[in-house]
């Protein structure tokens, strides 16, 4: 199968959906000639014109509002927030408006809105451009949260996001954009709430999402050489969450490590740990272990930056501690 970059898979998904449905349009900062800060929209302005590739001023709340208003009145906007850190400027529109309108209307209104954004550490962009803020959105009822780790997943899930009638926070990872992965030529979509076993194993379950899937797979490969077999489960969507798939794996291995780049305090990892404990306590051979980012703002210095989030060595160490 051909291999394409994560960013190219995003672009393909967008093109397919824009060709399929005239109501799909793009809006955000520097998405015109510039092609988006991570170049996922390269060439799209030429292809679709300024009416469907709408370049905006730096006005995050109004950008999200533009998406909500258009979604309420018949369109399917894909809004880009350049860095997830900037979503904080639009939290009323995301958390109080987009997330709540369907419920507040007694189910009569839908907000088919995709908010594409990216987060994570790895480029020396420091505190205000490197955060993993998925817990903010995971916490809000009414939002779906998608965090794809591979080219295949990002394409299939983005197409599903565009067709979904709920607001979807689609969180990419800045370090994955140039990573290549297998993507079929033919069209496909991936349903929300369906975890993917990225690697089969017997001894320990590693639950990881986004860039931590890549690090966990590297760790699992190294551990395999030492005779330790890890199963890597990627939920792909945090809301809805395919908790059953994780539980099935934990019941088989009896051991679970949750790996997440986000700070641990108040994290998705902590919540998932609690939810899985409730349902698998009797099958666990050891306490669930969380390998998460430190509870610190992200530092600029590269050594400090890398120290602030989980590395392959941390995952390997955690697995060994569990056995």
């Amino acid at each position, binding site marked *: 199968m051909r291999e394409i970059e994560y960013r190219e898979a995003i672009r393909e998904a967008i093109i397919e959906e824009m060709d399929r449905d005239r109501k799909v349009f793009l809006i955000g900062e520097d998405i015109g000639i510039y092609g988006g800060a991570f170049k996922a929209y390269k060439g799209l302005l030429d292809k679709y014109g300024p009416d469907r590739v709408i370049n905006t001023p730096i006005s995050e709340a109004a950008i999200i509002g533009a998406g909500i*208003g258009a979604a309420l009145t018949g369109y399917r906007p894909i809004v880009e927030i350049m860095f997830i850190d900037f979503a904080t400027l639009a939290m009323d529109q995301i958390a109080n408006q987009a997330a709540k309108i369907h419920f507040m209307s007694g189910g009569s209104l839908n907000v088919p809105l995709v908010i594409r954004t990216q987060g994570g550490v790895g480029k020396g962009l420091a505190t205000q451009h490197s955060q993993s803020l998925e817990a903010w959105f995971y916490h809000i009822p009414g939002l779906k949260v998608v965090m794809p780790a591979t080219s295949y997943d990002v394409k299939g899930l983005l197409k599903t996001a565009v067709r979904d009638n709920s607001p979807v926070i689609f969180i990419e990872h800045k370090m994955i954009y140039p990573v290549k992965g297998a993507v079929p030529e033919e069209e496909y979509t991936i349903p929300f709430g369906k975890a993917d076993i990225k690697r089969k194993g017997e001894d320990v379950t590693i639950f990881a999402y986004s860039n931590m899937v890549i690090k966990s797979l590297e760790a699992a490969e190294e551990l395999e050489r030492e005779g330790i077999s890890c199963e890597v489960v990627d939920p792909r969507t945090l809301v809805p969450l395919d908790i059953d798939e994780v539980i099935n794996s934990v019941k088989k291995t009896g051991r679970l490590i949750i790996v997440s780049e986000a700070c641990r305090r108040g994290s998705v990892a902590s919540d998932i740990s609690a939810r899985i404990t409730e349902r698998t306590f009797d099958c666990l051979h050891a306490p669930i272990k969380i390998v998460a980012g430190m509870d610190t703002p992200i530092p600029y210095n590269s050594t400090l930056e890398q120290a602030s989030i989980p590395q392959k060595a941390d995952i390997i160490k955690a697995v060994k501690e569990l056995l």
Partner: protein
Amino acid sequence: MAGLSNEVMIEMLKKLIEIRRFEEKAIQLYKTGKIWGYLHPCIGQEAIPVGACQAIGIQDYIISNHRGHGHCIARGADMGKMMAELFGKSTGYCKGRSGSMHIVNMELKILGENGIVGGGIPISVGAGLSCKMDGKGNVVLCFFGDGAANNGVFHESLNMSAIFKLPVIYICENNMYAISMRSVDSVACKDVGKRSCAYGIPGHIIDGSDPVEVYNTVKKAAGHARDGRGPSLIEAKTYRFYGHHPNDPAEYRGKEEVEYYTSEKDPVTNFKGRLLEGKIITEREIEEIESEVDKKIKDAVAFAEKSPEPELEKFLEEVE
């Protein structure tokens, strides 16, 4: 009067009275504990929704705010379903999920009241974008208060609407108070309407107690928008006759000020007088309208009271 037929003006008077009586009834029900939560009556401000909604068509959108009953009624919302929503009943516009501050209805193109001050302003950008992309000449009326005009989203949204030439009419209902903060103390340039020059769009500062002035101004702004010339900002000066909500005695206001506005600037009394003076209506006809409205309100309350409570098992259906 400015091209408005007598029938239309009588219809506008009827809407003014409907809003006034609905709000009076809601306050009474609130004080007797029949409805709870928050209630923000728009008594004193009725001319703005009535004049504005009269000036647009059924395909146009409106976006309201926390003080939004008037906008909904002016837009033709059913007072029974509104009252049922205030009662939290399953027959309410939002099936009892939302109460006073979140009434929406797509058939009437009411994109929603809003519990967040300023929360609806960015949404108007998207509705405006939709209207522009549809190319059918529809417009969006976005109502907000002087308080919301000081929120950052006001700037983001008006600027964006202006650069994209979106068909949005921004109507600032300046009732002189954001809860207790006086707009003369909170708006640096004193008139919100003057800010239009910052966006290169038309600005209008008008008497919000006069439904005809509101009508004419919105009509003009809607024409401007339908011609593809972009948004307008209208500041309608008005006065909130009561406190922020029924339990607010509004002690931050002077007695003389309240007396002046309630006696000189009452949109309902003044419009009645104007129609009587113009011999467009008689005292008797007004009485007939009033008793008809009273009956409608009575029926609305009866409908709300006898409506079933929402089912506990069903409310999660709206949550995916």
